[in-house]
């Protein structure tokens, strides 16, 4: 029997492999991959239905819609479809790859946005470890909003703008700013948050002028803001887009009732990342230490915090522009170089984490799980019932389901959906008072000749219609109730 020498050259190399350095790309790749994987979830955005229908119309007619084609209450009325480019792209993806294509693209957008935050923080001279932590803070705050929707393009372009502006601020070539122009044109044609680019310029301009105590330092940033605003006009609405953006932000109904516009509710789990980041920031600035952030960052931090506390709409802005500042505060407080040179063991750990997250995401995207997720949020069963019975409209529907119905029952125009700017305050208030049982529903239902009502079973209107002898509840499940006039075909 022979023995094998344990100290063979192959064995001696094993520890060396374990200690092998993986390079600086591992951490950002991990952060981006986490961003991508945690965004792999069913597309449940309440507006997705009408976005895809609008995209279909654009691809078919090669022009953006200017009038409402989805509701009967506003049929033919002017409608500013300012997100037309996102809709066309989403529809093209959807028609080729289905929902999986949309989810994958949405996940890619989140990953790129997070990666851009990492690049931005590296430009700010944060170590890879703290830049990674900052990007994770951004991701944490983005997660409640990371869905397949035009709004997610905001964080992406915001991250790009910040990375480029920071590079120029740190002495990079001015030509980098040219890259902002096409980005701004795209941004203005995919989502109303394009105006945030101007706010970034303002923060940089005012901050740098303050820092250098020379107002002239703000000049280039003011010029950049003017140019960005000008190129934003390259959209189907022209200057009308600006008017529309300002008009939407002034709508009272949005501020009072639209969940996306309401202030964050810190009792809801969706707002906990924001609360945690805010408190961490307060703790960091309160702690005696070197709180060394520049004036532009301080303005972004304050502006982002103010905006995010005022409205959920601005949490993505906070996530990208303000939350990462916390990582810089932590780095400044620690006051010593903390770096991470990823080794093979770290890489394996990262892969294990990604594998676990991916397994969870894939399970949630299985057809049955996907349908179950949709059926929890939307009246899938009621829609199947209406189709099966061939029920006809006009239909009164719940506000939250309007877009879903536009997508799933294209032959049945809706009463209302999430395009609040088109419906206007007066109409929406009347709808809400009807749905909440605050006014007699009959005048509204009579005015529009409603023959079908699809609402939540525990809504005030459902309670009212159940005791109304003129209406009959022909279907109900945990999500929805369907009412038709007594004696009708339903």
């Amino acid at each position, binding site marked *: 029997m022979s023995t094998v020498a344990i100290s063979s050259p192959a064995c001696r190399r094993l520890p060396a492999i374990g200690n092998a350095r993986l390079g600086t790309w591992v951490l950002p790749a991990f952060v981006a991959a986490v961003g991508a994987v945690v965004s792999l979830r069913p597309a449940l955005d309440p507006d997705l239905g009408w976005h895809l229908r609008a995209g279909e119309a654009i691809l078919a007619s090669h022009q953006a819609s200017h009038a409402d084609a989805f509701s009967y209450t506003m049929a033919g009325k002017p409608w500013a479809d300012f997100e037309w480019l996102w809709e066309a792209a989403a529809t093209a993806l959807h028609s080729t790859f289905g929902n999986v294509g949309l989810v994958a693209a949405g996940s890619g957008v989140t990953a790129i946005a997070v990666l851009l935050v990492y690049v931005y923080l590296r430009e700010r001279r944060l170590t890879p470890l703290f830049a990674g932590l900052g990007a994770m803070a951004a991701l944490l705050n983005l997660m409640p909003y990371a869905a397949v929707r035009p709004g997610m393009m905001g964080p992406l372009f915001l991250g790009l703008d910040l990375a480029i502006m920071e590079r120029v601020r740190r002495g990079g070539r001015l030509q980098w700013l040219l890259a902002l122009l096409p980005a701004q044109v795209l941004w203005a044609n995919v989502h109303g948050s394009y105006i945030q680019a101007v706010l970034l310029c303002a923060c940089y301009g005012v901050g740098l002028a303050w820092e250098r105590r020379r107002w002239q330092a703000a000049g280039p940033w003011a010029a950049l803001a003017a140019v960005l605003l000008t190129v934003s006009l390259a959209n189907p609405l022209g200057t009308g887009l600006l008017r529309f953006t300002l008009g939407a932000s002034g709508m009272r109904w949005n501020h009072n009732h639209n969940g996306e516009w309401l202030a964050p*509710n810190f*009792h809801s789990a969706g707002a906990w990342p924001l609360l945690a980041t805010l408190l961490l920031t307060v703790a960091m600035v*309160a702690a005696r*230490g070197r*709180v060394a952030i520049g004036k532009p960052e301080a303005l972004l931090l304050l502006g982002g915090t*103010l905006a995010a506390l*005022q409205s959920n709409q601005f949490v993505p802005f906070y996530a990208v522009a303000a939350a990462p500042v916390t990582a810089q505060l932590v780095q400044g407080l620690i006051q010593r170089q903390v770096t991470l040179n990823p080794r093979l063991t770290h890489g394996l750990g990262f892969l294990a984490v990604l594998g676990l997250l991916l397994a969870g995401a894939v399970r949630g995207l299985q057809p049955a799980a996907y349908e179950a997720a949709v059926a929890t949020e939307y009246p899938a069963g009621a829609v199947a019932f209406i189709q099966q019975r061939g029920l006809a409209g006009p239909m009164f529907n719940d506000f939250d389901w309007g877009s879903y119905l536009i997508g799933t029952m294209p032959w049945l125009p809706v009463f209302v959906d999430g395009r609040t700017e088109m419906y206007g305050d007066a109409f929406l208030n009347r709808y809400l008072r009807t749905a909440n049982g605050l*006014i007699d529903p009959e005048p509204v239902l009579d005015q529009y000749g409603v023959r079908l009502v699809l609402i939540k079973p525990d809504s005030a209107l459902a309670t*009212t219609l*159940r005791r109304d002898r003129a209406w009959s509840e022909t279907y109900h499940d945990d999500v929805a109730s369907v009412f038709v006039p007594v004696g009708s075909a339903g």
Partner: protein
Amino acid sequence: MSALPLRRSSGLSLAWPRFPASLLGLFICLAGGILVLRPLLDPDLGWHVRTGSLILATHHIPTVDPYSFTKAGAPWVEHEWLWQVAAAALNALGGQTAIVLANGAAVSGVLAFIYLRLRTRRIEPAYAAAGAGVALANLAVYAEARPGQVVALFTAAMLFGFERYRRGGNWRWLGVAPAAELLWANSHGSYVLGLLLCGLYGLAALWETGRWGALAPWALTGAAAVAASLINPLGVGLYRFTLGASQLSVNRQLVHEWKPPDFSDLSFAPILLTVLLLLALPAFLRVSPRGRAQQLLLVAGAGGALQSQQFILFFAVAAAPLAGELLQEAWPSRALTRLSAGSAVALALTLLGLTLAGPVTRLTPGAYHQAVAADYPVDAVAFIEAHQLAGPMWNEVDWGGYLIGALPRLPVFVDARTEMYGQRFEAETAAITFGTKPVAPVLQQYGIKLAMVNTHGAVAGELRALPGWRQAYSDKLAAVFVRAD
């Protein structure tokens, strides 16, 4: 008071008086007291005062519900008895005006404690007044006459005592904590915040010194405070009750003061601006509060205020005054040390203006009645009394407390004592109020003959269409329905 010579062209030398900057502190204290002299509109005041009167009359704290017919005789934990007795005694002495004045005095006292605490921390008078002023901006909106108001008073007193101890080492100042805790535990469920303060100061002492021994005074103070809090009619049961109340999800969903502040509402602007100020000063001027205790107070105060409106007063007293400290750290040499005679006159005129615009206008009988009638069904109650309508009566939950006080003849259906009614009952009542459940089965179940509801609410809509009921009265706010038989 010092005097500076002022030369005139005639050669005559006049001395204009100059005043110490601590006058600013006095001004803030008085202004705070005046600003909160306004009509009492707290929805629970009715049953608080009635309970206090009951305790004064019987010398016994009620243990079963005396106010509703839906839970009549059911166990009721009355943990705010001391505040209620004080309010009832004041009410008996001088009516609601006496309660209003006492509330103003309490707010002045809170601001005085805050000012003195900052002075103890070697903050210059002008900056200490600025810190108290920021606290006042937060207090002014939320300092209603109600048991929860004691949060501000006892927090301010304890923090003052703690800072005196930290500065001079005289342990007697720590005695403020058990004394305050004794009163606090018998006035409001927020008494646990007093224990939190002991914990924060203990943690800060440990953090700053790195010695476990530094924790000892605070641990002993905390233990004494816990012991003092147990001197209450419920004993240890008070802790069980407090824990149970904090876990009621119906409180967080339906009770206004348990909800987080909605910063899109302008009434919360003072908190939002204070949070931003406390972020902006360190971020722009690179200053930070001195000492770990203050840093912990800032984080705890901000976290509490963002989570629930209940903690806004704690934030106002514990965290907001740090703005004064940060300002002094940023501009140490710019503190005002003396006030000119003109400034003193301006402050006096401002107080006069606040008095004329505030209490003198708002507390006249007409204005007082109008303010109450804007929120509560004053005229509907008068109608019911004039016609001697009989119950059982259905009422909106928000009016329950008012009706217990204003209509003692008729037991209520529900009021805001969520812990007594229970989660299920309150949630069902809310569902009926919001129209998501019909009211008819409940009317049937309790044999209700009279309903006082919001004129524009869902229940009014249902009652108008419900056979057997007729609307006997309505105004902009309330409608009264009676069963036809």
